[in-house]
């Protein structure tokens, strides 16, 4: 099928991952993973370090190139030959663990850049939209601040605003709070929860078990490059089906 042909029955699915494998040389990071994310769903991916959670997330917008398998985002096959990956990425918002803000631009400048250079908006419209996005994450008083002048939690919120401003169909969060001091974690999580309440489709890789429990519709547990089990938070956390899941939860929920 040529790139761009919607796949039948995809109307409800925002992401469909089929048989995704990723190897770095001889080391396999992902083994034939299958995952579907429906519109409006919030999926949390949990698991130990090295389980492939971040790799899986980064494959969705091809920050990592899959070795095998297919990835469909809103019906478009991102792994097809000749696909316009830049166009596809506009629909996928990505939030990084290390924030990755542009240090030479203000908060407003960070959010504005893609609006001007990717969406080709006019200057006034870009500024308005950037400010709206910053308002949404609670940074109305920080338009002109540089990343170096912001706390970690504020920087991450700018990162979220930067992705949100493009009005993507899905947001991907790669351990959004792992690099933050504990007291700053809450402000970022409430922004994500608010997005969830407004119906944003999202996939969150996180170590915040309590948060996953509250916000996610579905929790996916990964281990050693494969999905071990997935279920509602209630089911997975209280009645895990697999032993590996039980072991992991026992280690992690002790804190």
């Amino acid at each position, binding site marked *: 099928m040529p790139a761009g042909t919607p796949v039948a029955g995809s109307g409800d699915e925002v992401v469909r991952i089929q048989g995704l494998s990723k190897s770095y040389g001889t080391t396999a990071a992902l083994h034939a993973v299958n995952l579907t994310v429906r519109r409006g769903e919030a999926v949390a991916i949990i698991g130990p370090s090295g389980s492939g959670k971040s790799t899986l997330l980064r494959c969705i917008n091809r920050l990592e190139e899959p070795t095998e398998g297919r990835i469909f985002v809103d019906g478009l096959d991102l792994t097809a030959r000749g696909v316009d990956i830049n166009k596809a990425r506009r629909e996928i918002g*990505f939030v990084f663990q290390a924030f990755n*803000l542009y240090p030479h631009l203000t908060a407003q400048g960070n959010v504005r850049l893609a609006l001007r*250079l*990717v969406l080709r908006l006019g200057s006034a419209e870009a500024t308005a939209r950037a400010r709206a996005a910053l308002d949404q994450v609670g940074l109305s008083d920080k338009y002109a601040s540089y990343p170096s002048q912001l706390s970690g939690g504020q920087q991450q919120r700018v990162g979220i605003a930067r992705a949100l401003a493009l009005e993507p169909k899905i947001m991907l969060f790669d351990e959004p709070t792992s690099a933050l001091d504990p007291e700053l974690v809450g402000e970022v999580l409430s922004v994500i929860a608010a997005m969830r309440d407004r119906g944003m489709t999202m996939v969150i890789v996180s170590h915040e078990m309590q948060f996953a429990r509250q916000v996610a519709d579905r929790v996916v547990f990964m281990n050693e490059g494969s999905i071990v089990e997935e279920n509602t938070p209630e089911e997975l956390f209280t009645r895990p089906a697999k032993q590996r899941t039980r072991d992991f939860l026992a280690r992690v929920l002790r804190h």
Partner: protein
Amino acid sequence: MDRLLHYYFNLDYMAKSLPALLGGLAVTVEIAAWTILGGLTLGLSLALLRALRIAPLSVVIVCFVDMFRAIPPLVVIFLFYFALPYAGVALDPFWCATLTLILNLAAVSEEIFWAGIVSVHRGQWEAARSTGMPFGRTLLWVIMPQAIRLVIPPLTNKTISITKMTALASVVAVPELLNQASTEQGIYANPTPLMLAALMFLALFLPLVLASRWVERRFGWER
């Protein structure tokens, strides 16, 4: 003391040689301007081409750069002046010297720009590309502003040291400042013109050095 003044600061000979020296200064300034503009533009262009990561292209660029970093500029000037005519290309001595300096500065500045580009954190590329920004726009608006700010000190340093080599042009009879001073010294059998030339070189390049300090300070937005 009297002898010092007579031989090195002789006002009479300074006045007599001034017109010739001013003419030489104009030529020196011209070589310097071409060198800075041509060298930095070529160097930056080569670094940007290298960022495309097209293997054969990168190999060619690195070969060119390493060659012109390794060969002494004086040797290149002689090759252009004495050897090129046998290949059918007769370059004006002015261009033998200027082209050499341009190529030398291009090679050195390419390495400096490249070091800046690869020093920018990979996460910056990922952040921009993840918003759908194409390669070229990412390089221009996200990477280069950071890369250039990183490398301003070594860049201004090398630019000045290579531009000072305008004096090498005197060996192929280009009528730049040193050449003129040398000639005048011969005419008057007094080294005062050389002293005057030295002061003129200082007057030309010291502002350049001070300007580079200002640039370093102005663009150093380091926390």
